[in-house]
């Protein structure tokens, strides 16, 4: 292992422009950002700040209009749709606010879904999915469908799904937004323990008390990063 910290995400001059009528509106207006391997970064900002756009670009769901995005050393800013899909599949694990589990299939099958698109055969899929379900403490619920699980359990299934392909980064978009206090605490503990195991996590949130768990806090406003703080500082979003 090299003692120089590896940079997982490197954004340079990222802009995202939309045409509204004759005018061009910049949702992101020149973002430079490095996130090191193992960092737990919280991305904050009021609605309309460009926070969601930045997250979509970081998650390879969208392409910037201008700029460079190196993920794990590879330039991904201007890949084709299918190449982006492959990048998402192999390097990014998603955790969403509303869980986004498929309702007709079991928890285990939900966890195994990214492996289907990675081309892993079915025996290995089941084995790996089961391992990660155990990690989030839901091995006994493997056969349950999402609607038979509580909100906290669903989010844990989603986390297992995000981890199953061993991605470089975990993108969590308001993961506790739909959860009660107790479940929120559980989920944040899981994120903490993932962080301790060295996972790179990007957490999008608007709640300062969630963001303080992170090792780094970024504030986006009007399409630029206005503040970049370490752990412990409470940023006022509004």
């Amino acid at each position: 292992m090299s003692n120089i910290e590896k940079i997982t995400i490197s954004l340079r001059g990222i802009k995202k422009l939309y045409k509204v009528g004759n005018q061009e509106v910049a949702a992101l207006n020149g973002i430079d950002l490095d996130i090191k391997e193992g960092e737990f970064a919280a991305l904050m900002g009021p609605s309309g700040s460009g926070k969601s756009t930045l997250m979509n670009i970081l998650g390879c769901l969208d392409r910037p209009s201008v700029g460079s995005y190196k993920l794990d050393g590879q330039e991904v800013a201007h890949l084709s749709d299918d190449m982006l899909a492959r990048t998402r599949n192999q390097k990014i694990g998603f955790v969403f606010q509303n869980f986004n589990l498929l309702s007709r299939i079991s928890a285990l099958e939900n966890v195994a879904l990214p492996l289907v698109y990675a081309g892993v055969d079915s025996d290995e899929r089941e084995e790996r999915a089961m391992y990660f379900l155990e990690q989030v403490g839901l091995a006994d619920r493997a056969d349950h469908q999402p609607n038979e699980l509580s909100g906290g359990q669903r989010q844990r299934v989603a986390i297992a799904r995000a981890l199953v392909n061993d991605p470089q980064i975990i993108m969590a978009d308001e993961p506790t937004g739909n959860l009660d206090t107790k479940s929120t605490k559980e989920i944040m503990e899981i994120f903490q323990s993932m962080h301790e195991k060295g996972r790179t996590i990007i957490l999008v949130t608007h709640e300062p008390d969630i963001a303080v768990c992170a090792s780094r806090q970024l504030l986006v406003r009007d399409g630029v990063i206005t503040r970049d703080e370490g752990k412990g500082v409470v940023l006022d979003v509004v």
Partner: protein
Amino acid sequence: MAFTALLANKMRSLLTMLGIIIGVGAVIAMVSVGMGVKSDVVNSISSLGSNMLIVSPGSTNRGGVRGAAGSRTNLKYDDAKAIKEKIKNIDFVSPSVSRSYQIVYGNQNWNSSVMGVTPEYMSIRSLEVSTGSFVSESDNNKRNRVAVIGSTVATNLFGTANPVGQNIRVNNQPFKVIGVLESKGQSSMGQDQDDVVIVPLTTAMERLMAMDYVSSVNIQVSDANKMDQVQEDIEVLLRQRHKIIGGKEDDFNVRNMTSLMETMSQTTTMLTILLGSIAGISLVVGGIGIMNIMMVSVTERTREIGIRKALGATFQNIMMQFLIESVVIGVIGGIIGIGLGCGLSMLVGKFGNFTTVITPLPVLVSFSFSVGIGLFFGIYPARKAAKLDPIEALRYE
């Protein structure tokens, strides 16, 4: 995966399949009815005798005034004998004469057509004798006054009594009934084939009708492929015998029953294709039903598509998922449709007045059509699904 999706909407999937089921079923049932009609027609024509050539005399020509076809009197019994001796690839030659007479038995009488024939007539027309025997070679040689009667004649003259051994009077001459023909029913032209009295050819010509010519000669050729050759040989032989030289017109006609059969079977094939294509329209309508429901399904599952895309599904992955679904509808619908169509055509065959024939070809064609339709009408919705933007799709409520 496709099955899970289809099972999740059982009723909807079933209704969608119904379009295909009815389409495939209709095609198979209609085509089998059409094929049945065809086989009926072919059978009734070949019951006249297969591979038949009919030689008949030409028309008279007196000073430019032409008479009716067959009005000439120059087709002789000897011509028939010569054809049999000299031309190859012939099974049977059966010259015949016929005329209508009043037939009398006791106090009953009946008007029927009396035919003078040789024993070969039985083979050539595939006749069967239900009681007694047919005209024999020796009857023909000795000009015996014997008769074989059709079942219509038998019923009208004898009622339920056995006619064999009784004497009937034809044109005031006594004839001994030696047999009764097996009933053949109506011909395809609507004639009662059982309303006939058969006597030896020589008896008819010399004792009954005082004719020295025959009215037609039926010839059965041994091989269907030799028909044209044999027809030509007969024409050459008869021109020679009748001393017709150069460009002069034939004084006889040779007609080919196969060409009639071909025309009829072509007509019925057209009928079958027509029926099949009308039914095929309902198959296409069923396909549009698939497309409709797949469009609904894509819209309804926008969010699912978004999730799958976020997790790494490519254009092709999503495309295949929806295509397989619509093809599965086509396949299952096609299989059930085959069952329905075969069942329907068997029912029609059993209880309707139709003969139905199920052949593998329409079954295969309509099945592959239904699969093809599932594929074709699935492409547009599947493409629509695969092209969805993952961000939009994830936001969709």
